[in-house]
């Protein structure tokens, strides 16, 4: 029988449809709890350092009780996970720079409190605190990251400047270090509004949100301190519009700036390029109640509520991020440069025992602060916009901060209402 055009089209369409359905069903096989090993999908954001991806795949393979499939996700990771958590096709286990308060309140992540029973005190308190809400733990911290002020010793010596210990000294030093070719300080291409966040407030002895859940920067000292960041900008001491932003040490290494605020992760690169010609400092203190400050953040491992294998996923997280300290050590220090979230591991690590690395570890212990969970995205946005206007437009810090305080109070009321 000759095949007509129409028959071909109809059959072809039917086949495509059937194939699609079969494929859709096919993706469900092997995810059945009755099977011998449940299949878990685990998501990581893309780490820049070579070797991290094979390492996490190796850890997953070493796990015997479940078939763990690692997904290595480049791009806007936070947005990808946020969207995936709304669906059934999201990850079972995922690393998260959070979870956010709204993710916890929305019931998107599983309570992991019993996983860290007995070892709770071994986690760096600044890493575990932002994963804890109402006394329950919602993610197991993987590694700690922090940010510090890098400076070129030779450039400071040449200009006759001592490493700054107060914010006023930093303003003066940045001004003296600025010449035709080199700027004094690099706080990011936006002038610091993005990366500094609550760090200057902590340096002034204040905070974003207090321990009892109130706005922590409703104080004249906040306006004074932020006014000094504006001074840096108005003095033209800040490097702006560099090809690579603050998270990359290129500006410091290439001599575009004498001092740069950057992450712990930049340390190996800086060391390789500058040898001993650099030092690190915390953000300098300001005012009578001031104290130096460094922000501490931690990626944590969380379990999605939509996972079909919650218990298996929890068991895996416990195995990898609580029990296998050898893998945790390897993950933190063999590829990139992070501080292990476990205090006992950080103490044992040789790499963290001397030089600038040891200084940074000490800063996180003495001066580290973590962004509190109650500091929601809406508060952060209001504050960051205010900071940007203070720095760049020369807006009145007092008035700008009052608006940010009002926005934060409204957010705090919202999250307290139903929690």
């Amino acid at each position, binding site marked *: 029988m000759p095949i007509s055009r129409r028959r071909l*089209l109809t059959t072809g369409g039917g086949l495509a449809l059937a194939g699609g359905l079969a494929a859709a069903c096919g993706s469900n096989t092997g995810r059945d709890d009755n099977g011998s090993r449940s299949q878990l999908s685990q998501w990581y954001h893309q780490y820049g350092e070579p070797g991290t991806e094979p390492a996490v795949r190796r850890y997953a393979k070493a796990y015997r009780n479940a078939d763990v499939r690692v997904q290595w996700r480049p791009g*806007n990771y*936070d*947005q990808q996970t*946020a*969207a995936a*958590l*709304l669906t059934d096709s999201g990850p079972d286990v995922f690393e998260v720079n959070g979870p*956010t308060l*709204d*993710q916890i*309140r*929305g019931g*998107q992540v599983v309570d992991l409190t019993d996983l860290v029973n007995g070892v709770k005190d071994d986690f760096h308190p600044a890493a575990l605190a932002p994963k804890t809400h109402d006394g329950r733990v919602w993610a197991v911290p993987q590694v700690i990251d922090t940010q510090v002020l890098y400076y070129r010793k030779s450039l400071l010596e040449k200009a006759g400047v001592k490493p700054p210990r107060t914010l006023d000294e930093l303003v003066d030093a940045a001004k003296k270090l600025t010449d035709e*070719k080199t700027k004094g300080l690099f706080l*990011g*291409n*936006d*002038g610091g*509004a*993005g*990366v500094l966040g609550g760090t200057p407030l902590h340096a002034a002895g204040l905070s974003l949100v207090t321990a009892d859940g109130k706005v922590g920067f409703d104080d004249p000292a906040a306006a004074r301190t932020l006014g000094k960041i504006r001074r840096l900008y108005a003095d033209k001491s800040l*490097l*702006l*519009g*560099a*090809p690579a*932003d*603050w*998270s990359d040490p290129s500006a410091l290494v290439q001599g*575009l700036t004498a001092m740069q605020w950057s992450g712990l992760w930049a340390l190996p690169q800086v060391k390789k390029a500058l040898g001993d010609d650099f030092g690190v400092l915390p953000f300098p203190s300001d005012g009578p109640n001031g104290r130096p400050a460094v922000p501490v953040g931690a990626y944590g491992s969380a379990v999605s509520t939509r996972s079909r294998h919650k218990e298996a996923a929890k068991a895996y997280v416990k195995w990898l991020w609580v029990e296998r300290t050898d893998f945790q050590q390897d993950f933190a220090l063999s590829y990139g440069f992070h501080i292990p979230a476990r205090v006992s591991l950080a103490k044992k690590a040789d790499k963290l025992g001397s030089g600038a690395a040891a200084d940074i570890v000490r800063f996180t212990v003495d001066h580290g602060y973590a962004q509190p969970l109650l500091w929601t*995205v*809406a508060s952060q*946005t209001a504050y*960051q*916009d205010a900071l*940007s206007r203070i720095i*760049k*437009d*020369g807006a009145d810090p007092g008035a700008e901060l009052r608006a940010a305080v009002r926005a934060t109070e409204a957010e705090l009321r919202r999250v307290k209402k139903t929690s």
Partner: protein
Amino acid sequence: MATRSEAETARRGTAPRAATPRPARQRNRTLWFWIFVGPFAAGLALFTYVPLAWSVYLSFFDAHNTVSPTDFVGLDNYTAMLGDPSFRAALLTFAVFTAFIVPATYALSLGLALAVNRLRFAQAFFRSVFFLPTACSYVVAALVWKLSIFNGVRFGLANTVLGWFGADQIAWLSTTDPPWYWLVIVTVRLWLQAGFYMVLFLAGLQRVPPQLYEAAAVDGARPGWQTFRYITFPALRATSVAVVLLLVIGAFQAFDEFYTLLSDARGYPPYARPPLVYLYYTALGQGQNLGLGSAGAVILALIIAVVTVVQARWFGLGGRDEKAV
């Protein structure tokens, strides 16, 4: 009603060879209509109308991190959005951007078209050269502008040129006073789209009947400005209306270059956010406040609808004049 009977016809159309030849052909036609139109209509409904309706639904709920909210809040999201200074600033940013980019692109592409149209030789070459940037992606162009032409350090192209004249370096994208970033934003889009609109104008120019020019010359119109003002420009009216409409729509959709040029290392643009960029951050960024974002989207859609209607009225689009022409 019509749809249902059509659908029934379509279903019966698949029945084998029972009917007389003529109605069978008729039915086949309806069947084929749905085979060809169906996938498109289904796609449109599934990917456009359902999300649209869902977004309106979400805008009445407190939808933090969820698309199936339960906490009805009435018009709270709308009042919050309209009371949000950042959203109003975003609308202002958009208005300023449109005020810059629409006349600038219009003038530049018309100028290019007039120049290219007068060329005696190498016309095809210049037409292609000016049209080429249209093929470039907005993100790529924005990155070139940000990283090599308008970066803030001494080896950026713009700063090198300034250096020849002994002027200070300027951090183009980081300076809000004066707002140099507008120069970067407007020039990148100008470069990208001027060539495309030039082609539209060229087509329009080539459709102007030469007799008009001959008649004008006989009547004593001087070549140059007078001919352009009284012959060419009025003859391009239809093209001009289309170009302005497309330019305004393009400006409403602006996202890529704003986001690429101005967002910081964490993907947050601190200023110069047109509404789409701001809503993207509120609803889909770390904010995940889908209710508030949807309310903003609905407000934006209403504004666009009003502007489009006003614009169409103003140009007399679809009016009696247009039909007569």
